[in-house]
């Protein structure tokens, strides 16, 4: 039997990793909720954002945490323009076209990154990367604590914006009733692009929070997005609370699975809990049947 102290440390470590999953998944679920499509370019855009953080540090010496507002704003603008200029324009108003376009974009982004940045992994080197904080019996890396707290705070802010602000209400209105939205004078294409931009801004934030402890290569977005897909389906497609709960559950499962079964086999825990939850609740934890 494992020492409870080790279990405790495992749960805490998983929880901290889950913060990033939540951030990536919230962006994915927001885009799904409004545009009714899975954004297949999600992983590639996370990778691009990670390279942005890397080059800001390498070329300009900007600390990833300092870069947070810059990268969030830049990612939002990039997502908005990408939707307005390309995705929305080429989709001709059909959701299934958006699916194909984002898939195509993912392939393009991945290969352009490979061409420009080569396949080598890049890391950034910050002084605080190795700092350890003791919480009870657990020893936790400081950057992971920061990333968890920041991720949860950002999701909280986004949740409040979606629930209370005029823009958030307009986004939710467009998600369910496009024609009604047009008839109150909401510029639906603009709102689509904003929602897409917010989803990508979440990736920008995730990239800043990841880079102190993670590496970037042209394929490094994929691992996170696979987990984000699982998270979104687990929590219920389009549900904010679901994405948050799902991300934390997956983080803890992954950590405990690694502890009990070893790093490689531990991933199986994610699949098991995924299957288990979908068996009991086919619409996901917080999903609503349509």
């Amino acid at each position, binding site marked *: 039997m494992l020492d409870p102290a080790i279990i405790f440390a495992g749960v805490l470590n998983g929880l901290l990793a889950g913060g990033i999953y939540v951030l990536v998944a919230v962006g994915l679920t927001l885009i799904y909720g409004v545009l009714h499509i899975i954004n297949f370019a999600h992983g590639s855009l996370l990778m691009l954002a990670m390279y942005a953080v890397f080059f800001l540090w390498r070329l300009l010496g900007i600390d990833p945490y300092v870069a947070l507002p810059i990268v969030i704003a830049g990612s939002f603008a990039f997502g908005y323009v990408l939707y307005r200029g390309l995705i929305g324009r080429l989709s001709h108003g059909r959701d299934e076209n958006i699916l194909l376009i984002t898939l195509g974009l993912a392939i393009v982004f991945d290969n352009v990154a490979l061409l420009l940045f080569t396949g080598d992994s890049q890391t950034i080197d910050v002084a605080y990367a190795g700092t350890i904080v003791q919480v009870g019996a657990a020893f936790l890396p400081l950057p992971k604590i920061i990333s968890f707290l920041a991720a949860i705070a950002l999701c909280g802010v986004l949740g409040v914006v979606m629930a209370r602000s005029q823009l958030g209400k307009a986004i939710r209105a467009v998600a*369910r009733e496009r024609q*009604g939205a047009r008839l109150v004078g909401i510029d639906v294409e603009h709102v689509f692009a904003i929602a897409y931009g917010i989803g990508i801004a979440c990736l920008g934030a995730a990239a800043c929070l990841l880079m102190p402890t993670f590496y970037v290569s042209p394929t490094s977005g994929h691992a996170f997005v696979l987990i984000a897909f699982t998270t979104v389906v687990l929590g219920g497609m389009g549900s904010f609370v679901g994405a948050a709960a799902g991300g934390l559950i997956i983080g803890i499962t992954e950590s405990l699975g690694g502890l009990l079964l070893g790093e490689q086999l531990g991933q199986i825990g994610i699949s098991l809990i995924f299957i288990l939850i979908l068996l009991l609740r086919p619409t996901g934890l917080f999903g609503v049947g349509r």
Partner: protein
Amino acid sequence: MAPRPDWVGSMLDVAGLRAGYAPVEILHGIDVSVGAGEIVALLGSNGAGKSTLNNTLSGLQRPFAGRVTFDGTDITGWPSARIVARGLVQVPEGRRVFPNLSVRDNLELGSYRRGGSGRTGNLERVVAIFPRLKERWHQLAGTLSGGEQQMLAIGRGLMSEPRLLILDEPSLGLSPLLVEDMFTLIGRLNADGLAILLVEQNVVQSLAIAHRAYVLENGLITLAGKASELADAPALRKSYLGQ
């Protein structure tokens, strides 16, 4: 709000409008006008082209040809947001309320593009007209009854301080008692000065409150005139009342 222009005439002028779903033309050249303070009924059976006309007027569809003038400005082919900003507002058939938002949020979004500065006062006004909505204030619109959703859709339309309100089949799906209330309400809104284009299948009650009326059949206006005269027109009686 901008002062009214001295220009006198129709508030809404539709001339030679051709529209549909490309390549199919549904409206084959329509002329319709609504004057300030008027209730104008647009009558027609299913498939006559009523919704195509409404959606073209509201900017959801682009016309193939013809002109739409509102308040002296050519708004032909404008996007819906700009048309709403001008004060031409449609309460659509099937309500189209936001099912995942509360009654209050639905009403607030009514003033998304126009009427934002008067929001508080307008909320009070809508609640005074539909006290029922206040009882449902924090409930999701998707959980309301059909009649309540119709009240909400009209309330949402009023929140944008319309200068001309297009009501598309407001009596559809309501119980006879509620239909009666609905027509009384439309008369009351008009008595307060609001110009209304009432698009209806309910011929008798529409003609009873309208000043003028048009009959739309197969994409063409086949009858037009004062509501009181149309009510006795043999052609109309034959088509709609079976006598």
